[in-house]
């Protein structure tokens, strides 16, 4: 951050910080969901797919003339169904979470593009649609803060949150001591899908489009993981909290903004983000060493 303040013109001013904050709203919400999943020692690779799926559902319903509230309820239900399906495959069918979400991301994207968008990548939303108007201005930032606080409260004060930590620490011990690990897993992935929905709404409203290419190009997913890992939540789970997300988000947002101000192309930015991710993994591995000898299939 210091680097960018000193060497990049226009970095260190209030207007730029405001831009950083509003650009980061979606990423913050995604990272909250991803953070909770990672704390439970899982990984949700379908989070971006759920995000665009949710935004697309809401967009289509509002364009089709539904009023905002019922459309929103239906969307929430649809997204919860995605999350619960993921959680069910992981907790009850016992497929490793990484593989489940890898495949379910394909299914979700494929389904929406095939059934809903008829093969298109983009869903255009009219800029006068209620959804776009609702989520303009300061609304994204407020929504992000609400999601953040909700995540913090859940992790800190609810049974589900405490079980999440227990799961990440030692899933077998948690199960043996009688904690509702399966139900909690269901809840965790449903929650992640829900945060993804809000993120999707904010992104869709900002650009008036729902773009399915962000699923395949994948950089948003990596950014969400990057925020979590950079913030210091170990991929082994069981530790960390919402303040780590904030730290990670600050780092990545500043990086993103700084690189944009340096006039780097998207490809160069992607490359740098990849390198930063690799470095973050190495550091994470150094700070939170893993006992790879006891790894199972899911712990890739």
């Amino acid at each position, binding site marked *: 951050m210091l680097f960018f303040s000193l060497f990049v013109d226009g970095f260190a001013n209030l207007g730029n910080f405001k831009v950083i904050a509003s650009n980061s709203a979606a990423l913050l919400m995604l990272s909250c969901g991803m953070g909770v999943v990672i704390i439970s020692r899982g990984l949700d690779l379908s989070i971006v797919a759920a995000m665009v799926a949710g935004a697309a559902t809401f967009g289509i319903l509002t364009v089709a003339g539904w009023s905002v509230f019922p459309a929103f309820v239906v969307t929430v239900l649809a997204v919860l169904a995605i999350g619960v399906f993921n959680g069910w495959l992981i907790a009850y069918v016992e497929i490793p979470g990484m593989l489940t979400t890898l495949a379910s991301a*394909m299914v979700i994207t494929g389904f929406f593009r095939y059934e809903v968008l008829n093969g298109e990548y983009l869903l255009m939303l009219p800029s006068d649609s209620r959804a776009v108007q609702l989520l303009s201005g300061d609304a994204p930032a407020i929504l992000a803060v609400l999601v953040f606080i909700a995540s913090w409260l859940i992790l800190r004060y609810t049974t589900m949150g405490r079980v999440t930590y227990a799961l990440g620490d030692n899933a077998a011990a948690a199960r043996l001591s009688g904690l509702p690990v399966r139900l909690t897993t269901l809840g965790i992935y449903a929650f992640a899908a829900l945060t993804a929905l809000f993120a999707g709404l904010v992104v869709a409203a900002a650009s008036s489009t729902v773009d399915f290419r962000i699923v395949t190009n994948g950089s948003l997913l*990596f950014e969400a*993981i990057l925020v979590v890992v950079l913030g210091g939540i170990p991929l082994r789970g069981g530790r960390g909290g919402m303040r780590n997300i904030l730290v990670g988000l600050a780092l990545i947002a500043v990086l993103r903004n700084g690189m944009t101000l340096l006039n780097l192309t998207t490809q160069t930015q992607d490359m740098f983000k990849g390198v930063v991710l690799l470095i973050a993994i190495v550091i994470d591995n150094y700070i939170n060493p893993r006992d790879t000898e006891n790894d199972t299939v899911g712990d890739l």
Partner: protein
Amino acid sequence: MAGPAPFPMRPTDGNNVNNSIKFNSLTRYKVPRLVLSPRRIFSDILSKGWVESAIPLLGFLAVVITIALTTDSYFSGSNMRILALYGADTGLVILALLIVVAVGGLDLSVGSSLAMSAFVALYGFHILELPVLLVLVMSVASGAAVGVVNGVLAGFMGCGALLTTLGTMITVRGLFTLASQAKLVEISLSARSDDLWDWVGFAQFMTLPVVFWVLACVALLTFFMFRQSRFGWHILAVGGNRKAARNGGIGVKKTIFSAYVLAGAIVGLAGFIYAARQNSIAADTGIGLEFFALTALVVGLGGFVPGRGAVVSVLLGFATIYFMNNVLVNSGFRGDFVQLVMGSVIIVILAIDVRFRKNRHRLLAATYLDPVALKLPPVQNMTGLMPSDLAPKLAEATVLGSGEIDGPEDVILDAGGNLYCGTRDGRIMRLAAPDFTEITVLAKIGGRPLGLAFDAAGDLIVCVAGMGLVRVGLNGDVELLSDQTERSLVQVQDDTSIRMGDDLDIAPDGTIYFTDATKRYDMENWGLDLLEGRPNGRLLSYDPKTKKTRTVCDNLIFPNGVCLTHDGKHLLVASTWTCSILIFDLADLAAGPRVFMSGLAGYPDNINRASDGGYWIALAGMRNPVVDLAMKLPALRLRMSKQVPPTDWLFGNLNIGGVLKVNGTGDIKDALWDRASGPLYMITSMREHKGALYLGGVNNNKIGRLDLPGADPDWTGPNRYRKES
């Protein structure tokens, strides 16, 4: 022995002509040639290692048949050639992914790496104008370089493979996009052509594209690497269990690193092939390839399984997915639909795989027991001889070696009168004559020693459950004579191993006849074989001259005791669950057995010759009407085995048993019962020796000795036997 109650013995009539057996007038016993049961076949298949690879094969066949039925000339030569041309690079990528998954990792960077090495190849060929072989080296090196990064991070540093390769995936993709944007125009403007380059890209060799042969060669090499090479074995060991691999002295980190580099190099080769074929690259080259490869791998392996290098299965999985994908696209489905199908296929296969893996042993346990109706003839020729009619004579037996021997299933005496028996922990004990108080270990052989016999050289031949046939010299030398026989032709399960060698006897020509009581259960679970009531056992012979073991008669119902008749021409075999004694003609074994005795009152175990020309038959337990009825009702027994705890199962009465005395033609002359309160119970063997009967029991911790007033006081088993032969 204090005041034995005298009981009538037949006069000694060893070589009495009246006692000779009229084999041909006995009833034939029908031995099933083939035991076919859907349940058994299912459980046998389920317990096979290849059952997991069978699923991808079935999937492949299903896809091929569906395509053949729904399309015209899809499998024509020209279409196959096109598919082989376009599928070779993907096939290579899948092999690379297989190597990484086999070592316990994952490589998501294959798509980016392929694009990058394809770019390197085109750059080297068109812009640097290098010779084709050097271009090939450059491509492979480019792929290997990505592999090195992955290997250092995931192997040496132990970072998570998924995120590491995710990181290299975006980084390399970014590099590729930058590089290709800068050079794409220049590459497409180049007009350089080269025979070798075109030969790789387009030529055919033996009617198939050259690139296909490249794939075939790499597949063959990978196959032999996993099968034959030390490195391949190390990969599988590390993927199977890292800790065990390290404890076994394998350099785990080095192996993981090398696997990533090797996989990277193969991806580089794939990139070269791609470049030679396409002669161009696009922004989306290799995008989504990792998911396609992962799908093929998951389909081929039937799940995500580290530590398996199943090259053929994976290529089958690849062909399945490739055909499916190709046909879907050909018939007008869009990429998004294909994506939907692929994702669903992965989820379904993973779900089946995970559940199958988790519940396979349960399914196996639930289907393994396979009862069948077994109808027993009623108890015959026991009037006045049942336990209720007679005093329990075995209650009078003296006890030898009490508490010092555990489980003497069989007992035998040598010519000098020393007593031998096997024990539960796999030792052969010797109780020295004359008072049997000096007990020493003759040999430790392991397994569960059961039947005993002396051969002509005076060595002890032992049937050992879990091992086979063992010779123990009286100086303590142990030699394994036989542990397997011929494999039966129509069996899913390999039944060559002798699972439960039970009892034996030695013919005058030296051939050892012995029984393998059941091929399906171990010594600890012999009781389940009764619940099954199927012909699971077999009579075997071992010829010491040729050292060959052969199956004399398969599909017998728990063949247990074996005894040569006094004339040395016939063989008695106890069939325990049918409560009958079968007889074989040694001159014509192929004719099959006939029934020597049937309708016994209990379950016969060992049989031995008596001094008077008759035989002793041990009854380990008694029949009762409830079990006899249950034997007729297989469904009842199956339900019982599933719903009732084993301690409450219906079973034969093992509280009372004893010894039957029969004459040379199988008429029951006397019965020596034990008492429920002991001292002996579950009598499994007895030997007559110098006017006394020595009694062993598989669960006893002692040997009984019962004086036989009126028996020939000089008769010993080995002496008598050798005199005749």
